[in-house]
């Protein structure tokens, strides 16, 4: 069932939906987007309150889980030998993957001049930051002695010790912290013009002051715009390799090891594709309800759903290729341990996770070949849930199912997450959602100035104007 809001919208001259529903003027765009932030509390949609309440409760679960973990020890989780990594690493990789969409959208698509990215970039970037914040928690909590996490950083110390640079965990520290820093800077830079717009529209003195302070004195002068454009291009250039590097390096946590199921060269590209896959799914997961609740269909049109679905389909197929190659390599290697690993995935005690993963990540997303499904927000949302679960299962299969049966059968053991594993996992979802709700409330969720640019471009296009 297609969204009725979109039904009547005429097609573009190139046969596609427009990126912004016609009829919007520069003023109406600013008004519509910034009004969400300036909405009086009484008029705020009740969905926000319900959602925020739930998210905030789940956040408490995170605090509880972390407190228990720190007081008792890593043993509260279901880990053991041989499965010494479990939920913490699965969740870390999962969140980091989710955090990929934003930068991809704002950086790579910016460089490729994909205008449709404009309506979703702000949102996606914010999500990236939140996901990275969630992800960043896990490597710390995961440590046996979390209070010593800073030993992973190279800093001059009285022990005369440096981190051990051969370890991919040290690479992780650099990759993730660089990614987080650049993403924050990029996102904030992009916010400046809008913060200024908010400042100008604010009626409350205090609010005006806060937005004013945050906007660093942006006044929209040509010089500002000029510098802004250069800065954002540079940052996009800087971010682009990071999009590829972060998850590649995360994948090296596994690939450099000797464990069958980890020790494989296809991990970097296949992890990056998986990250984009998961990231887009998460952007859609949040975007579809928000668009509905706040009536943002004008800016987040059928065109966006369609394009994003296509990205998911492609990245999903790359992931599927990765799965296929894993099987092929395992078989072709003739290595008994690799074969044993595959056999264990297919028919071992955790085979449910492998087959569920295939279902979620490969089978169900094939529905996206259909245009109707791609543009049906509800079905699309459901498919996104499959992908999110599937991507979590993928990490479960890689981490747990590879470890629980490795070389020597005498070591083999089982693994299940305990209630505290789940508490921390669900807690980070609460943390993520809490941040999302706060973001929606206090910052323009769609880039106002970019939408205005789009209005201008659409106008030009319609009236036969040439390129700039």
């Amino acid at each position, binding site marked *: 069932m297609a969204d009725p809001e979109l039904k009547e919208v005429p097609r573009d001259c190139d046969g596609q939906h427009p990126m912004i529903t016609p009829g919007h003027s520069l003023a109406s765009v600013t008004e519509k987007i910034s009004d969400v932030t300036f909405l009086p509390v009484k008029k705020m949609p009740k969905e926000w309150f319900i959602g925020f309440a739930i998210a905030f409760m789940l956040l408490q679960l995170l605090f509880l889980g972390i407190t228990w973990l720190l007081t*008792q*020890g*890593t*043993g509260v989780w*279901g*880990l*053991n*030998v*041989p*499965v*010494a*990594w479990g939920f913490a690493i699965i969740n870390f990789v999962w969140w980091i993957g989710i955090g990929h969409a934003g930068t991809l959208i704002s950086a790579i698509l910016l460089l490729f001049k994909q205008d449709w990215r404009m309506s979703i970039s702000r949102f996606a970037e914010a999500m990236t930051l939140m996901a990275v914040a969630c992800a960043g928690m896990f490597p710390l909590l*995961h*440590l*046996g*002695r979390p209070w*010593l*996490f800073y*030993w*992973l950083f190279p800093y001059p110390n009285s022990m005369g*010790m*440096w*981190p*051990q640079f*051969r*370890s*991919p*965990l*040290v690479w992780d*520290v650099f990759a993730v912290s660089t990614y987080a820093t650049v993403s924050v800077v990029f996102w904030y830079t992009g916010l400046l013009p809008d913060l200024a717009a908010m400042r100008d529209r604010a009626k409350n003195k205090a609010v005006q002051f806060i937005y004013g302070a945050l906007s660093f004195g942006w006044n929209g002068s040509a010089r500002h715009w000029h510098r802004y454009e250069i800065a954002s291009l540079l940052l996009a250039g800087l971010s682009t390799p990071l999009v590829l590097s972060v998850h590649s390096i995360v994948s090296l*946590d596994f690939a*450099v*090891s*000797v*464990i069958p199921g980890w020790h494989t060269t296809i991990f970097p590209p296949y992890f990056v594709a998986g990250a984009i896959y998961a990231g887009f799914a998460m952007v859609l997961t949040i975007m579809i309800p928000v668009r509905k609740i706040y009536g943002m269909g004008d800016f987040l049109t059928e065109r966006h759903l369609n394009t994003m679905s296509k990205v998911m389909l492609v990245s999903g197929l790359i992931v599927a290729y990765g799965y296929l190659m894993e099987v092929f390599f395992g078989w072709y290697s003739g*290595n*008994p*341990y690799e074969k*044993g690993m595959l056999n264990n995935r297919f028919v*071992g*005690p*955790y085979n449910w996770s492998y087959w569920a993963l295939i279902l979620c990540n490969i089978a169900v997303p094939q529905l996206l070949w259909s245009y109707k499904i791609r543009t049906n927000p509800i079905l699309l949302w459901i498919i996104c849930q499959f992908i999110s679960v599937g991507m979590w299962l993928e990490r479960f299969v890689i981490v747990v199912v590879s*470890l*629980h*049966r*490795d*070389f*020597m*059968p*005498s*070591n*083999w*053991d*089982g693994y299940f997450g305990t209630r505290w594993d789940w508490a921390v996992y669900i807690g980070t979802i609460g943390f993520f959602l809490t941040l999302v709700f706060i973001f929606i409330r206090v910052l323009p969720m769609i880039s106002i100035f970019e939408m205005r640019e789009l209005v201008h471009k659409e106008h030009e296009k319609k009236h036969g104007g040439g390129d700039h």
Partner: protein
Amino acid sequence: MKRIEENTNFGGHSDRRPGKGDKGDRINLVEMRKTLQQLTDSQESTQFSSFSEAVGAKDFTSSVKMKMEELKDSVERRDFMKLMGASAALAGVAGCTKQPKELIVPYVDAPEEIVPGKPLFFATAFTQNGYATGLLAESHMGRPTKVDGNPEHPASHGASNAQMQGSVLNLYDPDRSQVVRRRGKSSSWQVLKREVGEVLDAAKATNGAGIHIVLRPHSSPTLAKQIEEMISGSGDANEGDEQKSWSDISVHYYEPVNRDNARKGARAAFGEVVDAVYEVEKAEVVLSLDADFLTNCPGQSLRNARQFANRRRVVDGARLNRVYSVEAMLTPTGAVADHRLAVKPSRVAAIGQAVAAKLGVGSAEVALNEVESKFVDALVKDLKDNRGDSLVIAGEQQPPSVHALAHVLNEKLGNVGHTVNYIESPVVTEDIDSSFGSLVEALSEPDAVKALFLLDVNPVYDSPADVDFAGLMANAGVAVHLGHNLDETGEICQWHIPLTHYLETWNDARAFDGSLNICQPLIQPLYRSKSILNVISFIAGKADQDIYKLIRKGWEGLVGDDPEAGWRKVVHDGVLAGSAFTPKTVKANASALDSDVAEVDADGIEITYLPDPSVYDGSYANNPWLQELPKPISTLVWDTVVFVSPATAKKMKASADGADDRSNTIPRARYVSLKIGEFKTKAAMLIQPGHADGAVTVYLGGGRRRAGNVGNDVGFDFYKIRTSAGLNIAKLSKFQRVGGQYKLALLQDHHQMEGRNHVRGTTVKGYQDNPRFAKDHHEFGHEFTMYRNTYDDIYAKGNQWGMVIDLSTCIGCNACITACQAENNTSVVGKKECLNGREMHWIRVDRYYNVPGHGKAEIAENIHDPNKVKAVVMPVVCFHCENAPCETVCPVGATVHSNDGLNQMVYNRCVGTRYCSNNCPYKVRRFNFYKFADDETEVLKLQRNPDVTVRLRGVMEKCTYCVQRINKARIEQKVHYKKPENAPEDIANRAILPEDAVVTACQQACPTQAITFGNLNSDESIKDNAATKLDQLKRHELSYNVLQEVNTRPRTSYLARIRNNNEELEATPNDAHGHHGHHDDHGHHDDHGHKQGHGDKKGHGDEKDHDNGHESEKDVKKGSH
């Protein structure tokens, strides 16, 4: 010779050393000594407060007094714990010893032999079933921390078993009983002497009739003499003695796991009780009739294991013997036996009779089935071929008739005097069933028993089910219990006396061959405990005797002409040389054989009660090391369960997957109910492949109510269904599955090798056909690297440590596990964490079931046939890989490689990413998921090895190759090293250690010497022998590396297992783990490209390889019949 200076630290007076502190507190040693002397004279004992009283540490004294008051008012264990904490703290400060009465020497000039940080070793002995095994106890500043076998002792040869290793922890058991108790409330020895003395006085008139003493069989000449003198009223009189005549006193011997069967069997065969002493090493063919003679042969197990191993060390060119085992339970002996026949326990006699009949003794006509008759035919042929060089051993739990049969067979085969000798039994005992029976009889009459002394026995827990001992005790006048813990029996006795630990008191005992041992104490009693000798001397009416003097006096005639020197020597050696009994000439009476073949009930289920391999009869139930020690073969911990064969389980609709694969979930066992007559119990069932069908086996020692905090309610109590009529083997009147599930903690969750080649082995013939079969398994013929191999340069210098484990000799007894735990302060984690797969043992003994067949279905089918299941074991320690996968992935450099080839763990640096564990292909690393180490219980601190860090929460740990011992040797070497005259300077400076300079804890304990550890770098220029033993082993054709294909270059390698099969029973080599007999065309060419650890890096390695190969091949050929 105690440390007064240190002792002033009591109660926080650390600054009150002579010359320090204010004037009033200054210590006057002369004054002190005087005060002490007065105290000693005036009091019956100088308990821990005495010293501080002497030095006038007032607040300390008062605090202890307060504690004492508290203690008197309360009987809660909690308070005992507090007091224990206090006393232990004192003991710790005082170098863990309290002041003996006799001698006080200020520590200003330290005793010559004590160097802080350097342990001392004292010879002593451990006794079980009355047999002594010589030990060397390691003492750190007065605290015994570890025991190991005494190399001079005939029963241990330097080896030890898990219970010996664990016994040191019993000394520091926080739940140990600490004061004399009267009806549960704390009292004193003085009060006991007064009150119980009255009862004894009253019995004077009847010459002691009505006084009953119960003790375990023992072999102490002093105790025997003391009892004898007590009864006869003879012996020297001392001042203060009340001479009494106790001619009608009753002395009973009781032990739940006893040797009645062996005694009766010997009596049936020879007309008198003798002990069989085996010479396993001399036997070409050994037949075990349900005898687990390698791990459960009272007094002789270690020696048997050592001798067995001497005949199995293929690399030494041993002529392999051949072991046939007929048994029900799959025991370590059955697992290493060349041929094993699984039969119901009652069928063992019939098999033995069939063998006898074929050898021409006895007239029994036994109908054998196909498998049995094939087995018996081949066995008899082998026995006939090796007349005089064979040996038949009967299992302890088998009825006397089987023991008699074994004696007759040994005589018929001409083995007596060669592979078996008979000696007078060194153990002082009676037949326990009648001895205990007479006690029960006496107790069943009201008021017949005036005083009952239960010395180190616990019949309320472990008496036969049909004896309600607790109920009977109501008829006893006054009951006095002497025990380590306030156990089930102590709880209901009027009086309870704490028993001294064997490391706390002087004692003497005899070994299996009659050799006399002195057991010397290493520490003053931690608590107010008494030994059996103390109690007997009290009953006898002697004034408090000094046990030391008592024993010394008894030994006067034994130690030679110079009593002082002789005594010193025997105390030093631990064992009196030449004191073994001489073999007796006895004639077996062939008519002792039953001609009736016992009918075996085909449908009935038989039960065998065996002592638990860890907690024995339950005495060690409160020992966490032993509770967490995997039981051999099953790897079960923290439990005693019913072992059932897969087929028997299947009949009850319990699936065999319980035995097959549990790597997914926590194993959930089914419950079964067992009934014998009116006695029944419910217990969990463990499906044990290889167990005979129609029979179940249970380990005793579980389900204790009053063992202590560790042992309470661990496992199931099978004494509840163990009746006098069938103490060892009985018929179950009902055996069925009942509802509910139970979690079993097995340390190994997956039991099949899945076609992988970690444990490699073949038969003698397979070895002869392809001597390099173990190397054919390597996935890749040679090492491969993209880069120049730098390891050989790095590791060519200095000391380089390595280990070789011989799978032909390992019997999987698990002694190494506890030895490692004692040496390395390894934590115990408890059943719940074991279920979680978080056990902390640094060494594990893997066990795989070899079931023939291809594919799951066929294997599942064959696992139901106990005669098709074989088990192989493989000890696994850290491999100390030269190219260690764990090291490269640690982000903080907490695990690094040392120059001498050790993979080291820097606990302080570890942040706990656990990546190293994930990346270890052998999974030998252990993580402290919680703070497993108990650093709060004071008394436990005393046991810790001061040379090894106690690891805390969040830190990874693993086997270190006992780096503390390596460093000790290195320091010694540096201190004492002298450059050989003609050695070049650079080599001399390296101070290379001799290859056997370091012995690891596992190696030291190993009864079969399956573990060889040492310095691989035999530097030819400074050594006479170019190739060291370890070099030879590493270069041997049987040597292989596990997971060589991962390119880890492990320093721990294995020697493949060779079985000496009888070709008639098993023609083709088939160990079901690899391609045996498969000739690789490249087999020999491999030599050149093939780097085997260290050995081959020297150019002439190949040549040696071939030489060794041919030699051992020849020898093995000789050995095969």
